[in-house]
């Protein structure tokens, strides 16, 4: 077994280097950087703008009276500010980012280059449609790929993120029930307890009542519980199911689940967050799915930028297609592409408009670029490699960590904290991984497994990289099993030591404020 291939010490007694203090707050190449408000001035600006003429005003008395007081930085100051801050971030371009259920894969730079072509980046959503035919064609082409890969007849492109795509799918279900005259009676949505937190939240946002289904010992939907929930089917609107699920497992009974829901008069929403495990191997349309969002950033590599933007196109079955939101693209007989925007006109059955414009065009460009680069063969291979990599991690670590479920996994490997000594928690293992140079895995999710650790390597990692990661995690797992107290203090080598989240929540400080001046010392 190779150890310490990154040349970093792992033994707890060697970590005292973190106590070395510097006058500047910097540590070697890691520069200290204060807040913008502490280094800028309200008179400084980093842009050269022409001087206004100062002769015209049509504001009608609504002029701003108080200046914003916001500080500015010169261009070189601003460049350093952001470069120094960037160095305090971990990123997929730096190394493995094994956040299960989040899917951090390589972000090809070709995507970025193409998205910045003026013909994509510099076009307005409301300019005449004759001047944006290429953009509409691109949306249509991406839609074709998504429909074909899922074997679904329709797709709504406007959802802005995965959770927004869930909202789209559930609104389509709601509209279909209204059209059937059952909008008021069918209000119950079944959601497995292993679901993403967005699933119950989405159902509630759409006015549904959430009814939780248990997981069985194999980490899948408990079919007995499901059948019991369906005994009185008259109020069932549908089910929201994640597949592959949040335990990293394929729902074995998925076709039976779809049949049971349909027989009960409900619709089947599939959370497609984990579609990247099955692209090219399984088409959700063949499983009886009525609606499913696709997170373009997860499956098709659009960069996640520290929290977004996401994009969540939602595929729809024949039954739900008429209720798709506006706007959508159609191709007319003359070969021209056109946006259907008017719910009074062509889209009279549509449930409405979710968002101001046409969705995340910038993400569509990146996703299609990635899809064309991979092709049908490459997308399939990517799914298989993602699943192979996860199973390799599971196989390499299951002797030192606890795998809660039997058998193979899909694209993410799940472990529980059962192997740790008393007092050592999942968070300690995660923070120790930071000292090894890795972003930690997803912690405490899914909720159905105690002290869960969900590891998703994706297809982007080589075998050598997986081995290095497994070596590091294996070493930490052994220390956790032995009750190594030093783990409680990790990370030691990161830009910051462990942060106090309780303090942040107890008395929230959500913006910078001028420090109050100390009161003047009274004269004798």
């Amino acid at each position, binding site marked *: 077994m190779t150890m310490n291939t990154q040349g970093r010490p792992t033994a707890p007694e060697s970590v005292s280097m973190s106590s070395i203090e510097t006058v500047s707050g910097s540590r070697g190449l890691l520069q200290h*950087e204060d807040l913008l*408000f502490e280094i800028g001035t309200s008179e400084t*600006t980093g*842009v050269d703008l022409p001087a206004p003429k100062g002769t015209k005003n049509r*504001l009608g*008395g609504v002029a*701003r009276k108080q200046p914003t007081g*916001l500080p500015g*930085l010169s261009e070189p100051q601003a*460049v350093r500010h*952001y470069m120094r*801050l960037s160095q305090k971030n971990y990123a997929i371009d730096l190394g493995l980012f094994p956040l299960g259920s989040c899917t951090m894969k390589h*972000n090809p730079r070709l995507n*970025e280059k193409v998205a910045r072509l*003026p*013909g994509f*980046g*510099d*076009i307005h*959503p409301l300019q005449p449609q004759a001047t*944006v*035919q290429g953009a509409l064609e691109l949306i249509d082409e991406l839609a074709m790929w998504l429909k074909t*890969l899922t074997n679904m007849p329709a797709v709504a492109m406007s959802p*802005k*993120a995965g959770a927004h795509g869930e909202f789209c799918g559930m609104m389509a279900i*709601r509209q279909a029930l209204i059209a059937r005259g059952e909008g008021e009676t069918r209000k119950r949505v079944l959601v497995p307890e292993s679901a993403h*937190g967005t699933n119950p*939240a989405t159902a509630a946002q759409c006015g549904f009542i959430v009814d939780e289904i248990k997981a069985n010992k194999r980490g899948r939907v408990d079919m007995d519980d499901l059948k019991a929930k369906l005994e009185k089917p008259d109020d069932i609107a549908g089910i929201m199911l994640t597949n592959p699920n949040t335990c990293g497992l*394929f729902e*074995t009974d998925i076709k039976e689940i779809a049949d049971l829901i349909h027989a009960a008069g409900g619709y089947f929403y599939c959370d497609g967050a984990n579609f990247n495990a099955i692209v090219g191997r399984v*088409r959700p349309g063949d*499983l009886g799915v009525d609606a499913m969002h696709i997170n373009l950033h997860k499956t098709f590599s659009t*960069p*996640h*930028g520290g*929290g*977004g*933007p996401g994009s969540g196109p939602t595929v729809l079955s024949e039954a739900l297609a008429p209720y798709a939101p506006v706007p959508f693209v159609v191709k007319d007989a003359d070969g021209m592409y056109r946006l259907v*925007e008017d719910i*009074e006109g062509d889209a009279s059955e549509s449930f409405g408009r979710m*968002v*101001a*414009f046409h969705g995340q065009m910038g993400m569509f*460009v990146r996703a299609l*670029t990635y899809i064309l680069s991979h*092709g049908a063969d490459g997308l*399939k*291979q*990517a799914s*298989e490699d993602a699943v*192979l990599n996860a199973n390799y991690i599971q*196989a390499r670590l299951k002797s030192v960590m606890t795998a809660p479920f039997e058998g*193979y996994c899909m694209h993410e490997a799940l472990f529980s904290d059962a192997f740790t000594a008393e007092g050592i928690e999942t968070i300690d293992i995660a923070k120790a991984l930071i000292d090894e140079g890795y972003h930690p895995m997803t912690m405490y999710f899914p909720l159905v497994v105690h002290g869960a650790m969900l590891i998703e390597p994706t297809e982007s990692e080589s075998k050598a990289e997986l081995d290095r990661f497994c070596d590091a995690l294996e070493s930490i797992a052994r220390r956790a099993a032995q009750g190594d107290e030093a783990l409680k203090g990790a990370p030691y080598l990161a*830009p910051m*030591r462990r*942060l106090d989240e309780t303090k*942040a*929540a107890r008395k*929230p400080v959500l913006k*910078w404020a001028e420090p109050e001046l100390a009161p003047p010392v009274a004269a004798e």
Partner: protein
Amino acid sequence: MRYLPLTADDRAEMLKTIGAKSVDDFYADVPEAARLNGTVEGLPDHQGELAVERHMSNLAAKNRAASSGPFFVGAGAYKHHVPATVDMVIQRSEFLTTYTPYQPEIAQGTLQTLFEFQTQVAALTAMDVANASMYDGSTACAEAAVMATRATRRKKVVLSGGLHPHYAAATKLLCEAQGIEVVQLEHAIDGELALADAVDDATACVIGQSPNTFGTVTDLSPVAEAAHGKGALLVSVFTEAVSLGLVTPPGEMGADIAVGEGQSIGNGLNFGGPYVGLFACTQKLVRQMPGRLCGETVDAEGKRGFVLTLSTREQHIRRDKATSNICTNSGLCALAFTAHMTLLGGKGMEQLAVLNHEAACDLADALAGVPGVEILTPRFFNEFAFRTPVNAEAVLAMLDEAGIVGGVRASRLFPGDHLGDVILCAATECTTPEDIAAYAAALKEII
């Protein structure tokens, strides 16, 4: 297959370690009937970088970029200049290719920029607190309406006739899904003050917009007073963030929640997205707020640092009781916003706003000089509506032939509302005197 590092030997060796015969073993749980043999039919195989780039360039070439000629379209998205430094910052790998800052010890870059973003948005809107960005202005508006019903325990929302129709549509959709009554006032160019009369004891909030869809700027203070008098909230909306450099901010007009589109600062047009929703409110309402918040704290050694906070409002803890179902934010677009805002500073922001306003004044004067044209917007920032004696669609088509993208016909936004002869147009710092002269000259030819 250039994105895939595993070799055939690696795959074989890994399967051996796992104890599986082939990858097919991993898909054994897939029902037989749903298993695919071979690749999905009807789709091409992988292509090289050159081929893909050529295909995408061909698609891009079929679109006319806003910078390629005189361009006057606004109505919720604006053509502004973005300094090169902004794009450099957001293309830094450590910002571009990182995830939600769930591990704050190695995400201080993202977290500090979000904290700075929140501070900037609060200052610009003159509100107490701002969140770390929403999807865009329209969804922020919808969330604000729902938040107001939660805060007031009332179930009615009143929308101004000056509210961007797409914002109104997104708001109606979310509200109606939750059984919230929505009252939409008649569209009116100068209609914000009508909100004051529409508020009653059942109203959770009134939603006004300034500058509104027709460009009109309005002092919403009387509306705030009327709303507060009835126990309702004022939600103040803007679609042009640059206006905040020059017009009275929502907080100074008594708004309880201020929402808007931040695309104008640091973000390109991108055919409608991704954009960045700005969302701010009073201190009293902070725990009702949807979306992410970044807060200050200390690490184990007492050093200042930042974390995501108040997550007990969010879907991953409160599930069906959460303040929203939102999971992500517009992190990278918020970074572009805050980087551009940092370059501008308060001084640059004000100057940029004045330049926008003056360009629009010059445009209005030039168009008013064309016989038959009537400027309809009484007070404006950088956008206004005008009436033409000829059908607006025909006018815009003829302007297009002259290489000028003259604006948006109001009937595209308000279908069936008899605005067939009204055009909405905007000017920004990108608008040159030559653009304005060309517009006026071409319009004179047409009508």
